């Protein structure tokens, strides 16, 4: 079985980009070989002078269709591993009609224009500029045409189902139409220009024959599942009344459950909801809807006996045929509570699990959050498979009750965005916040948590003042807080110190900050959130971690206390200074805060992997219980080291000298060490 990049949700990776480039190369090469780098040749199809477009298009379509059907027939790939675009009749009919006009006017379509540009056609360049402009125009008028864009949405719709044929029958019919089109094209060319190169040629005869034979061959390879003749059960008394009731349910689609509804019900942990996967075990093990039971069709009645007419039984397979037959059989045997998952697993994947970034239709913020929540619940890498699958039924962990990580990833946040009680605070400068932010986030300048106390500038405010600010932000002690920074990750940890001071431990830092969120193309908006002022209680005794200069001075010279100076190394040595005195506290070790984060090319700042950090700090701090004091100049950068040591690495005895070097340097009675020869002390 082949895993496509789409099915692995890896179309956004650099590997996918490279493969897309290669496939594009083949595409462009073939287009040009066909002579589609000439607008005159392309337009010829509309004047019956050059029918190459019809010949190439049908050959391509039939080849790919046939190839794919054979691969599916051999079991090498499944259709649901391929992105099946939704059928939206209104948009596609109007789009197609418009497209035809543009095509015949411009003499190009987007792909062939790329080929035309490569062959030096200036009209192709102009056409492409037009396409770019048309796309931008579309975006600008999108709000106006929104209803047309969605008009006649039927989801994934296979043409053979629409016209009520078998898949193989439809393929044969389409192949025959294609072959007829080839011959008509040749005939039209001959009538119009006297050419008709392949009309009646041995080549075209052979080519037509091969295609038809291949289409017929599909009937042999994968015979269609033949209706209700495959009996699931033996002798069952069927009454006319039962059958009528069944038919009525079928007619009213009462026997269907939509993927979205099933997803929500499963996530809500609804009791008495039994989801049954009737596919072979191999497929079930590869992927299944979380919580589903795998029951072979033959054992369905037996296995489901305990659930008969109790709660809800939902059957699914890749498509709809097998579950529908099984449902009919169960119904005949007295199960009145059996439902089919609309569009099967294929529909569930497309409608619930398809990443927001790959959807062609834009989603509202609410819908996007819903999709992300589904994805986090159903599409997350499976935990080691539980041997007793049935134990999964009904087991459910609330997204917010699960052990809260201290550093959360964008996926984590995306999956929970919009959850009541989750407050996201954006600490970037206000203009950046105003331009675009994660939907629903509050803006905060972290400096508003600091002020001048005791003559020392920039120290964290006392609990009553912090509580007053929390109240203005509408925060509650029960809220889960996620802090989001720009390129200063330590803004989040400084804000974290304020939460720690008030004993609000349910807070986390978004790894990579807003930059990572935006880079991943996740939803943003520019709206301000609605905030109701709260009364955040003042808790005064939670802060046992902030120390003043006396406390630090008292520890000087003690071998079992580690003082870490997190400022850049030049400030530690005294080479640089913007304070009263240059240098560092005697006995302090230097570990710049910048060593603990990685900054990638586009300002995405994340913590280094925990094991790398643990290894580095095990060299500096003897044990997890060692008393550690961290400081920088104003307490800002040191908050990052504090958070990392205490909340990520589990050091239990970490203190924060908030006033930092600003205060220490200014108090001339305190000792310092300056490693540079030319002492730059300004005093």
């Amino acid at each position: 079985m082949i895993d496509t990049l789409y099915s692995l949700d890896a179309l956004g990776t650099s590997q996918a980009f490279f493969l897309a480039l290669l496939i594009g190369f083949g595409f462009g090469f073939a287009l040009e070989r066909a002579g589609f780098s000439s607008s005159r040749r392309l337009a010829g199809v509309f004047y019956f002078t050059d029918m190459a477009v019809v010949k190439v298009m049908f050959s391509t379509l039939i080849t790919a269709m046939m190839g794919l059907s054979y691969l599916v027939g051999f079991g090498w790939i499944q259709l649901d591993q391929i992105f099946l675009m939704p059928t939206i009749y209104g948009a596609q009919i109007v789009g197609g009609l418009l497209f035809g006009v543009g095509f015949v006017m411009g003499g190009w379509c987007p792909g062939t224009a790329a080929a035309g540009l490569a062959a030096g056609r200036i009209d192709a360049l102009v056409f492409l500029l037009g396409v770019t402009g048309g796309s931008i125009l579309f975006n600008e008028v999108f709000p106006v045409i929104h209803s047309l864009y969605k008009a006649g949405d039927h989801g994934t719709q296979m043409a053979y189902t629409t016209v009520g044929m078998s898949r193989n029958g439809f393929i044969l019919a389409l192949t025959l139409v294609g072959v007829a089109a080839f011959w008509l094209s040749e005939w039209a060319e001959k009538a119009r220009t006297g050419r008709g190169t392949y009309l009646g040629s041995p080549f075209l005869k052979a080519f037509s024959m091969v295609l038809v034979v291949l289409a017929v061959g599909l009937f042999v390879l994968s015979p269609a599942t033949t209706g209700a003749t495959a009996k699931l059960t033996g002798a069952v008394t069927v009454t006319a009344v039962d059958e009528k009731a069944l038919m009525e349910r079928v007619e009213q689609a009462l026997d269907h459950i939509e993927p979205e509804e099933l997803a929500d019900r499963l996530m809500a942990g609804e009791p008495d909801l039994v989801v049954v996967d009737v596919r072979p075990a191999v497929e079930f093990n590869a992927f299944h809807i979380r919580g589903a039971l795998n029951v072979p069709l033959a054992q369905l009645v037996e296995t489901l006996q305990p659930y008969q007419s109790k709660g809800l039984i939902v059957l699914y397979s890749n498509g709809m045929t097998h579950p529908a037959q099984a449902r009919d059989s169960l119904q005949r045997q007295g199960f009145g509570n059996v439902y089919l998952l609309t569009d099967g697993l294929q529909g569930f994947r497309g409608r619930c699990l398809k990443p927001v970034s790959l959807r062609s239709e834009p989603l509202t913020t609410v819908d996007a959050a819903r999709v992300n929540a589904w994805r986090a619940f159903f599409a997350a890498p499976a935990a080691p498979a539980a041997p007793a699958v049935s134990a999964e039924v009904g087991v459910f962990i609330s997204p917010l009750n699960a052990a809260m990580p201290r550093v959360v990833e964008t996926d984590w946040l995306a999956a929970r965005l919009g959850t009541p009680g989750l407050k996201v605070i954006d600490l970037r400068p206000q203009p950046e916040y105003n331009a675009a932010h994660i939907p629903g986030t509050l803006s905060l300048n972290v400096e508003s948590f600091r002020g001048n106390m005791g003559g020392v500038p920039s120290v964290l405010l006392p609990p009553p003042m912090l509580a007053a600010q929390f109240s203005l932000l509408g925060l509650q002690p029960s809220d889960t807080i996620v802090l989001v920074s720009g390129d200063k990750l330590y803004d989040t940890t400084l804000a974290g110190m304020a939460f720690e001071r008030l004993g609000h431990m349910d807070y986390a830092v978004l790894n990579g900050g807003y930059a990572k969120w935006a880079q991943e193309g996740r939803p943003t908006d520019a709206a301000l959130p609605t905030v109701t002022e709260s009364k955040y209680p003042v808790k005064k005794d939670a802060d046992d971690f902030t120390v003043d200069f006396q406390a630090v001075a008292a520890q000087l010279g003690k071998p079992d206390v580690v003082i870490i100076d997190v400022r850049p190394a030049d400030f530690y040595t005294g080479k640089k200074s913007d304070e009263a005195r240059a240098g560092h506290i005697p006995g302090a070790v230097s570990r710049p805060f910048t060593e603990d984060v990685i900054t990638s090319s586009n300002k995405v700042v994340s913590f280094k992997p925990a094991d790398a950090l643990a290894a580095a700090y095990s060299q500096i701090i003897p044990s997890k219980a060692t008393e550690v004091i961290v400081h920088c100049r104003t307490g800002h950068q040191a908050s990052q080291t504090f958070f990392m040591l205490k909340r990520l690495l589990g050091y239990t005895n970490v203190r924060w000298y908030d006033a930092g070097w600003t205060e220490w340097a200014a108090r001339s009675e305190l000792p310092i060490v300056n490693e540079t020869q030319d002492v730059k002390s300004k005093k």
Partner: protein
Amino acid sequence: MANETGIFHGEPKPYANPYLVGVLLGLVLLASFVILGAGLGASGGIAHIGASISMAVSAPHTLSSEYFGKWGSTPLNYYLVFMFVGTFVGALLSALLANRIRLQVERGAASSVGRRLGYALAGGVIVGFASRLARGCTSGQALSGGALLLSGSLVFLVCLFASGYAAAWLVRRQWHD
């Protein structure tokens, strides 16, 4: 003429057999299905380029717009953008090999350059708009969706040719010799 060779001289080679090229193209499309799990696409790449231009003009406006907004702040990081670049390079190689590169505005001899480029631009705008509406163009919808036997894609294909033939007479002059 026989000794004249090189890119802009000499005779272009004849086009390949359209049926065999179609088979080749079908195999490329099949490879795209199997490897990427998605068909070929051209207009999607161009639209993402359009979104990045829109970003350059006004990032806040683009990010807050309903359609482009969901593509994020780096719309060029999209597989179809890379496919589009590949399409250009692949065609360039083929055109070089076949000696078909000509810097020209392709048109009927009796038609003016202005008319032809005007039609090309207007056609481009319509195609760009229509591709977004229909979720794809001749590559993404008609060919890829058609090969997957999707109802909407086949309907798109039929509508495309129907209106193309209907409008052909109106814009025929650009090809008159």
